C-alpha cells in the first residue's frame, strides 16, 4: 500500500500513428504567409478530431494538398489507403486564413 502511495501509476493511454504529407498545388500556396500557422493549426485540429481518434484504422496516412482560395488557403486531406473510402475519416477539407479559426470538415468519404 505504501508503494502504491509513493509512486503514481503511469496513465493508460493509447496512441496511433498519424501521418500527414503536405503538397502545395501552386508556388503561391507554398509562399502564403499563413501557410505554416495553418499547417500547425490543422495538424492540431486533426489530432483532436473524434473521427480520427475513433478510427478503426491503426495508421492514418493523409495526403494533404493545399491551394489558394481567395485570400485564404484551402486544404484537402485524403487517406492514402483507398480501402477506407467509405469511412468518415477518409477525407476532410479546411479553409484557413490569417485570422480565422480553423475548422476541419470530414465528408464521410463522399
Amino acid at each position, binding site marked *: 500500500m505504501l508503494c502504491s502511495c509513493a509512486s503514481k501509476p*503511469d496513465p493508460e493511454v493509447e496512441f*496511433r500513428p498519424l501521418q*500527414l504529407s503536405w503538397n502545395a498545388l501552386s508556388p503561391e500556396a507554398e509562399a502564403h504567409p499563413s501557410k*505554416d500557422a495553418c499547417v500547425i493549426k490543422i*495538424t*492540431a485540429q486533426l*489530432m483532436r478530431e473524434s473521427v480520427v*481518434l475513433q478510427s478503426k484504422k491503426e495508421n492514418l496516412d493523409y495526403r494533404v494538398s493545399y491551394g489558394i482560395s481567395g485570400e485564404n488557403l484551402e486544404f484537402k486531406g485524403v487517406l492514402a489507403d483507398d480501402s477506407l473510402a467509405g469511412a468518415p475519416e477518409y477525407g476532410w477539407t479546411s479553409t484557413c486564413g490569417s485570422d480565422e479559426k480553423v475548422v476541419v470538415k470530414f465528408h464521410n468519404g463522399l
Partner: protein
Amino acid sequence: MSRLMEKIYALFRMNILIFGLLAATVIALFAYQNGLDDIEFLNLADYPYVIAQSDSIDGGESAIALARTDSSIIVDYELREGYAYPYAGVKIFLGDGKIRGKDLSHYDSIFVWIKPRGEGTVRLYMRAYDSTFYRENDETSLKFNEIEFFPLEETYPAVFVPQEFRVASWWVAQNEINVHNARVDLSNIPLIEIQTGTNAPLGYGTLEIKGLCFKGKKIAKVDLVTILVALWFVTFLIILVIRFFDYSRERAAARKKQEELEKNLEALQIEKSEYEKSSKEDPLTGCLNRAGFSSILLREQENLSKNGSPVSFVILDIDHFKEVNDTYGHNVGDEVLVNLTKLIQGKIRNTDALVRWGGEEFVVLCGDTPIQNAQFLAEKLRVAIEGTALIKQQQVTCSFGIAEMIPNEDPKKLFERADKALYAAKQGGRNRVVSATFKHR
C-alpha cells in the same frame, strides 16, 4: 643535523646586525672600563708658567719665595697682618693665561700632590674664562671655581671630582652675577691657583707642590651611551626596513604563487568542464549523447509537471543508412552523420536539444512545444534533408517519429511511442513524418 645548522645559520643571518652590534657594545663597554684613559699630568717641577704670589698685590704684607726641586716646587711664605685675608700661593698659567686656557671639563677626577708644612687649609682655584663676565686685563674677572681642603698625608694625593667645586660666593657677590649664571665651568681654564686657606695661621709656612693630574676618559660616558643608543636605534631602523622589504618580497611571491594556483585551478576547472562536456557529447558529431540527454529530459519533465509546458520528442532515422555504409564505406557514413547534424542544428531552436540516439538515429527534444508544432518542425527538417546533398554520392532522406510527453509518464513509454511512429513512417515508405496521436479505445 644539517637542517639544524641551516636553521642556526638562517637565524644568524637574519640577526647578523644585532649580533654585530651586541659584540660592538660589549667591546666598547669593556674598552671604556679598562682603557680609553685620557690622563694629563702637570709636573710643576719643570712647568715654566708658574709664579708665586701673595696678598702683597692686594695691599697686604705677606712674603713669599718659590724654589724648584727635581720633582716639585717649594713655596715658602710668611703670612702677615695687613690684608683682611692674608694668603700666599702659586699661579699656574695654562694656554695664553688669559682667555684661551685648557678644557678640563671632560676629566672625571683631579689629583693634587701637595704637602703643607704648616697648619690650615689649602684653596684650589680653577679660574675659568667666561666671555660674559670677562673684563680685559682684569684677572679678577676670571671665574673662581674653588675648593678648599685639608691636605693630609693619608689622602696624598688629594683627589677631587669636578662636582666638588663651587663658584666662590664672594666673587659672585662682588660681580653681581645672577646665581643661575654662576655655575661651575671648567671648559676654559687659563689659570690655576693654589693658595693658603681661610684659616691658615699667621707666620711662616711652606707648600710643597709636586703637581696636578687630570684623569678622564677619551670619550665621555654620556657620549658613549648616546652613541651606542643611536647605533642601536639605527640598527633597528635598518632591520625594520630590511624586514619590510623582505615582507613585501614574500608577499609579492605569495601573491604570484596564489595567482599561479588560481590559474591552475581555472585550467583544471576548464579541463573538468571539458571532460564533463565530452562525456555528454558524441565525439563524431559534437551533439549530445544519451548521457547528456538525461539531464535535459529531467529538466523538461519538471517543466511539464510544474508549468504544464508541453514537451515533444522527435526521433529520426536515416533511411537506408546501412547501404550507404556498405556501399561507400564508413567514412562516407560518418560524413552523412556530421553533415546531417550540422543541417539539423541550423534548423532547430537553441532551446531544442539534438541528441545522437545511437547509430543513425537522432532525437530532437523540443521543450515548450506541442506535438503539432513538433510535427511541423519535423516536416521542415524532412524537406530540408530531402533537398540537401549531404554527400555527393547519393540523396539521403530521413524518417521521423513524434510523440508528446504525458505528465508523470515513464520516459520509456514516450520513447516507445515515438519509436512506433517512426516504425510507421518506415513502413509507410520512409522519408515521412508520423506523429503518435491519441486513440480512443
